[in-house]
Structures are given as C-alpha cells and as structure tokens.
C-alpha cells in the first residue's frame, strides 16, 4: 500500500477532498428514548490515526456501529472517499474498505486462525481452494505488516493479544483501508497494548487510516494524530493531538474540571490487620497460581498489588476472601486465623470485618437482574436491620439504598431500577457503597475502576483514600499501574504467582514494569 497523498490529484478544490478518508455529516440516531448520537460531524483524514474519546455511554460505539453498518442512522450522510454512500450492513462497509476490530472479539473460538480469517470471505462453495488461497494471502499479510500468527492454531489456545491480531488480520484480509478499533486495549496487558500501538503505527505508515476509540486519555496522547471528543451523544470538539493536553481532553469529556491526580496525605500505618503467610493456591487444573506469598497489611494504609493480569492476583483475592480454597499457608484477620485451606465462610469473614469488592462485578459482585436496592444488601441480607422476622424489611432496605445512592452519587437515583441498567461506573459504586458503608477493618478491592468512566474514577479513588484515612486497611489489586501508583502507600508486584518485589509508590513506571515482566524479580530472587 503506497500513500498517495503527495502524488494525489492536483485539480482545484478536490485536493482537500482526496485527503479525507471518511466524513460523517449530521449523523443522528435514537434507540427508543435514548438519543445515542446527535447531529455528529466528523472528518477523518487519510493515513492518520484518529482518536475518538468519551466516557462510557457517550455514543462512541453507536457511531462506529453505524459506520460499520451494524445500525442505520436515522439521518445524516456517510461520505467515503468523496462519495456519499449507504452502508446498510457490514457487507457494504467491507465493500467500501472499512474494517472493524470489535471490543469483544468476533472470533469463533474452536476454529483455527485461518478459518476465522476466511469466514465470510471464502471465495468458493467448496473449502479446499479457499483454504489454500487464504493461506497464501495470510502469509503475505503477515510479512507485509509483521503480524505473525500460526494460521493453524485454535483461537481458544491463543493469548488475547494474538486473538486481537487475528481480528486485525481479518480486516486486512478483506482489504480494509480504514480500520476501526473499539476499545482495543481493554483486554490487553500493558506490554500487549504497547505492541498493538507499534502495529497501528506500522499500519499508518503503510497508508491505512485508523479510527481508535477509547476512554483512556493516555492512549490518545500516545498514538493519535487527531482526536475527537464525544459527550452525551454529541461531538464536542476535535483537536490535533499535539496541540491539546490530557487536562483539556478530560474536561471536554466530562464537561467539568477533573482532578486527575489524587490528593492524599501521609499514611499513618497502625497495627497489622491482615497477615498472609506462605499462601499457596492452585487452580482447577492443578496449576500453582499463588506461590508461597506472604505480606502484612496494616491499619491506615493502602497496599497495592501490581502485576499483569493472570499472575495470581485474582486467585490471591479469592483465597483471602474465602471464595477459593488454598493449598497451604495461613491468613490472620485481626490476629485470628482464617481457615483458608478448609472452609472459610465468606459470611463469617464479613462478620469479622473483612469486606471484598470483587474484580468481576458482573459475575461475582452483583446480580444484574436484581434491583439496585437488592444488590445493595447482598451478602448482608441476614443482617437484623434488613429483616422483619424471616421476611425482608423492604422499607428499611429502600431507605438504606436511598441513603447510599445519595452518598455515592449513584445515577439514576432509583433503587428500584434493575442493576443491569446502570452504567459500569454506577454499578461499581453500588458494590463499593455496599462494602464500604459497613465500615470494615479490612477492605479488599479488585480492579476498582475497570470499565468505569473518568468522572467516576475520581470519586472512587477519593473514597478509597478516605477509607484509609479512617484507619482502615486497604488491599488494592489493579492491572492499571497508574492507579496502583496513585493510591498505594506500598506496592508489591506479583509475577507468576510470586511476590517479586516491594517498592515505594514513587518507584518509576519503568522499574515497576520490569518487575511486572518478571525481569528484575528473577535477579532479585537470585541474589
């Protein structure tokens, strides 16, 4: 692919037009009462990486789905390469050279890479010829864009980063010139994300146009040329990336000034509240996930556990909170042992002052089909104040929910609304309110801001620090290194189930990154 910008047509006013890959004019889309996109105008120049940023629910994904033919706009025009086009289904989008990498991969897990790439673009009824053709083409693409992947590997056996690469290859195989990536880094480790950015840079150099959707400001600053900001279904601004700043973008996104750095004072560590000694946990397949981990957590401090996802943090949290059985080791809560290798009862642990905000709020933290108020007491539902004899005291539950909604600014403020209908950030606030308002001695939090928008992140971080300042012991696990560094008083890093090092929060990102990658840790262990 050669970038034709410099050698493009030179006749009159069309010069500008030929620079433009995609133009959206006055796109409008409603779903029932929800006005998802309002009169959106967007111009994406050829051969650039154009970021689209906005909070969850700002309408980014809807807009891109319209461009990819998944939905039809109620009004407005899509202009591709200077021609107004109708994109009535993904087929039409593909025909116009538009490819999309979805947030949740659209891959068939028990198919091979080759079969996935081919699916929908097979060129004959019988597969044999299509397969050999696809194999040749895939080899060519791999070479041209340095996107290596074994064509015969099953998708389910590939790490997420490679699965995403297959999605990109799928788009390139269909000869996409314009690639849309919807929240591509959400599932990636930092290293995988960096790799993706390099790939995107390469694609851009080869003349592809890339539309990059995210709610992470850092990523916008790192790789985009231009950035458009969406807020509540509207396109509020477009900037050249090198002429704007994180602060300005954050303000545009949220519509008010946002505190990106959390203010926190010195910690006043007190007694040891949670003491973990030589804890070892295996998963269902017998693989050791937590390997001989020991640490102490004191009152009035936040201990952050950094690490790339899948290095044992999840299993560690589950073992401490009594959801998963440990193989060996001991845990003391307020000086008294938790039966981690036997039957630690989460209810008993709650009564003893341990609260747990699980990493996966959808499957562990909440019952999405329940009302907000019901989720607000989940796990504490046997508490006398929510009960009337053997029946639930709905009035008390309602009142309790309303109080928390006010205090945690949960929106919409309706305790009877199904939890599934709240945004990610508000769902997380429901869980946090439930666990924090009990005033536990020890608070264990996994991924406090995963899938949560900027405005809510600020609020959640403040609340976590407040808990610390009230003398609670907080154990924080997050794959967002920035978050760990901003909140923690001490940081331990986990790699392959082991604690590979402890650092102060002012340790550099590079230093922690090396520990997370297991590089420094090995040296340290050897010494």
């Amino acid at each position, binding site marked *: 692919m050669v970038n034709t910008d410099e050698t493009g047509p030179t006749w009159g006013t069309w010069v500008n037009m030929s620079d433009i890959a995609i133009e959206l004019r006055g796109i409008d889309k409603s779903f029932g009462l929800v006005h998802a996109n309002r009169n959106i105008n967007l111009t994406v120049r050829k051969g650039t990486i154009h970021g689209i940023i906005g909070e969850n629910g700002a309408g980014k994904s809807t807009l891109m789905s319209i461009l990819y033919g998944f939905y039809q706009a109620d009004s407005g025009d899509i202009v591709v390469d200077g021609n107004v086009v109708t994109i009535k289904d993904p087929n039409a989008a593909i025909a116009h050279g538009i490819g999309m990498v979805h947030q949740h991969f659209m891959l068939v897990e028990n198919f091979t890479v080759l*079969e996935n790439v081919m699916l929908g673009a097979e060129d004959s009824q019988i597969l044999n010829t299509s397969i050999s053709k696809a194999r040749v083409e895939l080899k060519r693409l791999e070479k041209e864009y340095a996107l290596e992947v074994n064509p015969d590997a099953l998708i389910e056996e590939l790490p997420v980063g490679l699965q995403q690469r297959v999605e990109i290859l799928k788009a390139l195989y269909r000869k996409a010139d314009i690639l849309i990536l919807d929240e591509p880094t959400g599932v990636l480790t930092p290293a995988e994300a960096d790799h993706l950015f390099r790939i995107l840079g390469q694609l851009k150099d080869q003349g592809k146009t890339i539309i990059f959707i995210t709610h992470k400001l850092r990523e916008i600053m790192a790789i985009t040329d231009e950035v458009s900001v969406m807020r509540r279904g509207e396109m509020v601004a477009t900037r050249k990336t090198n002429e704007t700043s994180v602060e300005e973008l954050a303000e545009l996104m949220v519509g008010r000034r946002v505190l990106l750095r959390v203010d926190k004072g010195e910690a006043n560590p007190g007694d040891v509240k949670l003491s973990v000694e030589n804890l070892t946990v295996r998963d269902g397949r017998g693989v050791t996930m937590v390997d001989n981990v020991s640490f102490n957590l004191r009152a009035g401090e936040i201990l952050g556990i950094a690490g790339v996802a899948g290095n044992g943090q999840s299993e560690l949290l589950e073992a401490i909170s009594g959801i998963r059985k440990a193989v060996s080791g001991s845990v003391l809560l307020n000086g008294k042992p938790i039966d981690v290798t036997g039957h630690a009862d989460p209810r008993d642990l709650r009564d003893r002052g341990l609260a747990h905000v699980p990493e996966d709020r959808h499957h562990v933290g909440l019952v999405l089909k329940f009302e907000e108020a019901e989720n607000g007491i989940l796990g504490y539902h046997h508490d006398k104040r929510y009960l009337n004899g053997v029946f639930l005291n709905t009035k008390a539950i309602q009142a309790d929910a309303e109080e928390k909604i006010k205090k945690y600014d949960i929106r919409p403020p309706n305790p009877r609304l199904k939890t599934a209908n709240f945004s990610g950030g508000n769902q997380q606030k429901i869980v946090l309110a439930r666990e924090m308002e009990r005033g536990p001695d020890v608070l264990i939090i996994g991924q406090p801001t995963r899938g949560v928008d900027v405005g809510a992140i600020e609020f959640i971080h403040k609340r976590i620090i407040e808990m610390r300042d009230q003398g609670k012991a907080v154990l924080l696990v997050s794959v967002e290194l920035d978050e760990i560094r901003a909140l923690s008083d001490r940081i331990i890093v986990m790699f392959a189930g082991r604690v590979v090092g402890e650092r102060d929060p002012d340790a550099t990102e590079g230093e922690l990154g090396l520990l997370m990658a297991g590089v420094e840790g090995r040296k340290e262990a050897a010494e």
Partner: protein
Amino acid sequence: MDLFHTIIALLESTIRVSVPLIFAALAGLFTERAGVFDIGLEGKMLGAAFAAGAVAAVSGSVIIGLLCAILISVLLALVHGYASITQRGSQIVSGVAINFVVAGSTVILGEAWFRQGGRTPALAGDARFQTITFPFADAVKDVPILGPIYSNLLSGHFALTYLAFAMVPISWWILYRTRFGLRLRAVGENPGAVDTAGISVIWLRYRAVICAGILCGFAGAYLSLAMNAGFVKGMTAGKGYIALAALIFAKWRPFNIMLACLLFGFLDALAIRLQGNPLPLIGQVPVQLMQALPYILTVVLLAGFIGKAIPPKAGGIPYVKER
C-alpha cells in the same frame, strides 16, 4: 454356528432399528451445530411418518409418500425456526410444543380420515419401500461366514437404509468441507462473528433448520413406509429423544453419531431378542431396563468415561444484536 447366525440376525436388526436414529441424530446435528436446540426431532419424525403413511395409502405411491413426509417435516421445522429464530422464543418450549401438537393431531387426523384407531391403512406393493437384494446374494448365502454377512447383513435392506449410512460421510463433508458448513458451525459458536462478517445469521439458521426437516422426513418415511407397512399412532416411541442422546453422546460429530446410533440400536435389538428369553446366571431381565439402557449409558458414560461433551457455545440462545 447357531450362535453365529444369532449374531448376524442381531446385527441385521441393529441396522434396521438404527436407521431412523441416524437420520434424526444427523438432523439434530445440523440445527444444533447452528445454535438451535431441537428437542422436536421426535415430533418432526412422527409428523413425517404420518404424512408418509397417509399419502402413500391414498396415492399408492411410495415416492409421493416420501415427498410429503419431507414436506411436513420441513414445515414443522420452519415453525420451530419461526418461533426460535425469528421470534427469539425458547427453543426448548417450541420443540416440546411441536412434539405434543404432532402426537395429538396425527391420531385425530388419522382417525378422522381412515377410521382405523389412529392407524393408516396397511400398505402393500408400490405404496411401500421394497428391500434391495445385492447381486448373487442368494447364490453366496451358504458360503461360510462371508456368505451370511454379504447376503443378510449387507444386502436386503431398504434404499433409505443405505441412504442413512451414506448421509454420515455426506453430512461430515457438508459441515467440514464446504463454505455452508463452515458458516453453519460458526453461527453455532459465535453468531456475532458471522454477523460482522456480513453473513445473515437468521437465513443461515433457517437453512440449518430446513436441513434437519429434510432428514427427519427421511426418518419418518422410513418408519411408516419401510420398517412398517403404515403409520401406527406414537410409532416413533421416543426415538427422537434417543437420537438426541446419541447426538450428545457423540459430542456433535457425524461419525461418532453413527457409532452411537448403532450402539443404541444394538441395545434395542438386544432388548427385543431377550424378551422372554432368560439370560444365563442373571435370569429374566425386565424389558424396561433394556429400553432405559441408552439413556442410562449416555448419563454414565458422559459423567465419567468419555469426557465432557461441550455443546455448541451459542446453542439455545436466540441471536440479538447488542443493545
């Protein structure tokens, strides 16, 4: 030698009773691989058997009977498709409903039309399938070992019997070697992948359901036009459910399906043979136990011996675009 003849006879009847199971299980393979669970195999088969018996009796033509069997079965499949694909209803409820409606209506229509207590008139001559005898089958009959195998086991079956066994590799070829098969398997695992690739999920699933209708049509026609000489009420007698068990047992794979159906057919044939004949040492075995054996076997073997049977991931879930 007597034991040998007994075994040949047993295997011969195994093949005979396996045929409708193979057709029905392959039918289930097509829909379930496309993500539509099909508990209505029983009903489709029964409806087809009735249509075949009734039409063949009136028209006197086995071919017209067969075509009507397929037609009715496909129509029932489309009802299931409309309820579960277009209207996104519960696939289980729709399947069960079809089974009940067919079980009742075949008896009512049969009684109304033919007044023989829900039966269709006995078929003879051109109104019924005839067995095919291989060349020299009679001549080699007395050759030891190979003779009976050739003339009793391989020769002397109905055309539909050979078709059923031919459908096994054909189904495999369709599913694993054609574009249609690739897409069909994909839509049963992740319909989103198919939709974003620009292929219609709905049309693809309808086609899978139609394939199942055709195969169930063969199964039903075999019951009333080949294995028996006419339709008898409730003549599928749970074969649709056994076929489902075979499908799960076979982990949704064509050749495994054939083996599972043969195994279940063998148990069935054994049950018939053992009726009234006490086993040495054990004594009389209740026939109900033998009849329950396929289900017991499926549960026991799936529980511990052949590993987990993982159904198609999107099976049973109607496809809805996000939002």
